């Protein structure tokens, strides 16, 4: 880390040379810390107070629900931006050299405070609980972790999740990127084609569960027509119907297909936007140099949108790591389809063992470390190139 606490000057002073008129002394540093903390807290606190006051005010009045709703929407949306504006204005009243050092905290701080409360604090609490017994009344050391690494179902969930994390992102990004590139060539139909890939994302999860029931549905031979698409096709080829979701090994793949169907729209939308940002003259130049379309794709388009690909890939990996509802609804982790998030919920809320559930969750947090390292590298590279 180059930005250690003892280092008096910040790394990027050169780039801010326009603003820096003098370097703050000891008192100045104290003031910076004071105002940085104040600025960090200002927006979240003010947002909360403003909205809370507004809500309480509205609750008192005898208004129809849609009117309360409309007012709430206005306060909630315009209000947040207004607060940032006010805080930034207040910072301008500060001495320049202090204000410039405080401002980043006013801008990035609110986000940190909110994720600190809503994600970081619960995550730390989860790690603590993972060392406690089922009802979180006493500490029991690493017992829960021993359980996670010896219980066959938990071990299967680790293996399966590894499969999800490797297979799903690559398929989603592959199809999403390919589709975005191809659709980019279409003129009038592009918007329609893209919206069809996006459509699954708009279906509520309850709906998606039913959608796929009509794909994988199984009926015993001779007891009526197959109402699942897959079995209808399979039996029309002369085969006996198959219960796809209980077909060992393959059932994991069938569940992954559901996630690919749901999530490719995400990859496609982001990558499509990135592709449209590749300047036309670069492509043109490559073509004039005699590059084939495939060469243009690999040598110009892909490198140009690499940062977006990494972002989408990272996001998809994390989504796959956290996959839960698909498995929960369709198989409940039975027939060898356990995944770690499903195990976590099962342990916590079905078996009511919070310690074991938290240990599974902690394992999940650890699994993200490699992904984070990859991103730190990328972040640094990008900064260096600037």
């Amino acid at each position, binding site marked *: 880390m180059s930005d250690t606490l003892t280092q008096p000057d910040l790394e990027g002073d050169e780039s801010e040379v326009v603003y820096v008129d003098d370097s703050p002394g000891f008192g100045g540093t104290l003031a910076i810390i004071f105002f940085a903390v104040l600025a960090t807290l200002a927006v979240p606190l003010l947002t909360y107070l403003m909205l809370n006051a507004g809500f309480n005010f509205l609750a008192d009045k005898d208004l129809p629900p849609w009117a309360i709703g409309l007012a709430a929407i206005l306060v909630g949306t315009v209000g947040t931006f207004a607060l940032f504006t006010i805080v930034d204005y207040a910072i301008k009243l500060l001495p320049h050299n202090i204000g410039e050092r405080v401002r980043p905290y006013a801008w990035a701080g609110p986000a940190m405070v909110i994720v600190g409360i809503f994600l970081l604090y619960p995550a730390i609490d989860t790690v603590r609980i993972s060392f406690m017994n089922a009802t979180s009344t006493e500490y029991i050391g690493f017992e829960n972790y021993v359980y996670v690494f010896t219980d066959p179902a938990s071990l299967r969930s680790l293996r399966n999740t590894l499969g999800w994390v490797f297979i799903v992102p690559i398929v989603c990004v592959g199809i999403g990127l390919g589709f975005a590139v191809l659709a*980019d060539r279409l003129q009038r139909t592009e918007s329609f084609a893209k919206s069809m890939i996006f459509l699954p994302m708009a*279906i509520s999860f309850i709906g998606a569960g039913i*959608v796929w029931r009509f794909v994988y549905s199984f009926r015993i031979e001779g007891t009526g027509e197959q109402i699942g698409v897959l079995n209808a096709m399979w039996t029309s080829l002369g085969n006996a119907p198959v219960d796809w979701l209980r077909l060992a090994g393959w059932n994991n793949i069938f569940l992954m297909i559901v996630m690919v169907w749901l999530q490719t729209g995400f990859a496609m939308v982001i990558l499509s936007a990135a592709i449209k940002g590749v300047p*036309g003259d670069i492509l043109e130049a490559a073509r004039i140099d005699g590059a084939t379309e495939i060469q243009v794709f690999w040598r110009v388009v892909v490198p140009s949108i690499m940062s977006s690909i990494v972002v989408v890939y990272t996001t998809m990996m994390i989504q796959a790591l956290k996959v839960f509802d698909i498995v929960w609804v369709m198989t409940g982790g039975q027939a060898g389809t356990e995944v770690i998030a499903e195990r976590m919920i099962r342990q916590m809320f079905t078996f009511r063992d919070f310690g074991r559930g938290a240990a599974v969750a902690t394992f999940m947090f650890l699994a993200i470390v490699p992904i984070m390292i990859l991103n730190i590298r990328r972040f640094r590279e990008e900064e260096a190139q600037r």
Partner: protein
Amino acid sequence: MSATTPTTTEAETPTKLKPSKEGGVSNPATLWVIRIIVLAIVLIWLVPAIGLLITSLRDQAAITSSGWWTVFTSIGDFSQWTLDNYNQVLTSQGFDSAFINTMVVAVPATIMPITIATFAAYAFSWMEFRGRTAMFITIIGLMAVPLQVALIPLLKLYGGFDFDVSFLAPVYQFFINLNPNVDVSIETVRTGLTIDLNGKFLGLWLAHTGFGLPLAIYLLRNYIGSLPSELIESARIDGADHFATFTRLILPLSVPALASFAIFQFLWVFNDYLVALVFLSTNPGNDVLTIALNKLNGSNGESWYLLTAGAFISMIVPMIVFFSLQRFFVRGMTAGAVKG
């Protein structure tokens, strides 16, 4: 460095990109191949959804006795078609208020995280400050936190958390002395600061904001950070401060990225069931659409066919949002992702 100056890109993109697509390189044969591939993928993607649509228009007996695709061979058999599923969902008790509630939840819960994340993404991209990398990495790491583990600590925080502000009493007394007209005791301040968010929309907005922020910051930082640095520097040389650069330059340029995140966050909040259930359930009048629809399904799932209609009804709003925001993906795409 492959970055071209954005001003020229901006001006040239619309005119230069189009001819290069149709002209010269993509001959009609290639174009047809592309069309067929795109169509094939679209069809594969649509099959399950078409199944859902057709199912939602059939009665229960037809749904369970024959595959949905059989309607194509017996399309004239009107006895199997029915709008009853839609009718039952739309007239179910509390459906209209659930719809309003969903909108009240979804709109602020989409815009609040975007606002906060855009400021943060700008700071992470174009400001230097102590702890920047650490903060950004923390944000990425927090994407891995499953929200299910966050619910219990947050419920506790929402329900029974009092700020102990008694230490502020002397300070408070000081201000009271300055302005005796304000007649408020320290006890009042304490009450005013007591958090009681369970069952309130505000609690849900904040929760969705918290859960949505990491991805929002991650995506937006990628986009805003890849805008050419020359652009930012030239704005500074012109005398614009950070706030002016942000509102006049960054925001307009980031519209595509903002729009795409807005779509995802809106979808997520609109279709969310668990978070709404957990934070609103103490107030029975506050059901959102997903919860109302879930209640239509019978205890043993005997009315699941109603959910097919429900799924289509609840899909309308997200699709409208997608189509209305989609135009931002095509127009005005400029300097984003220029850097490799």
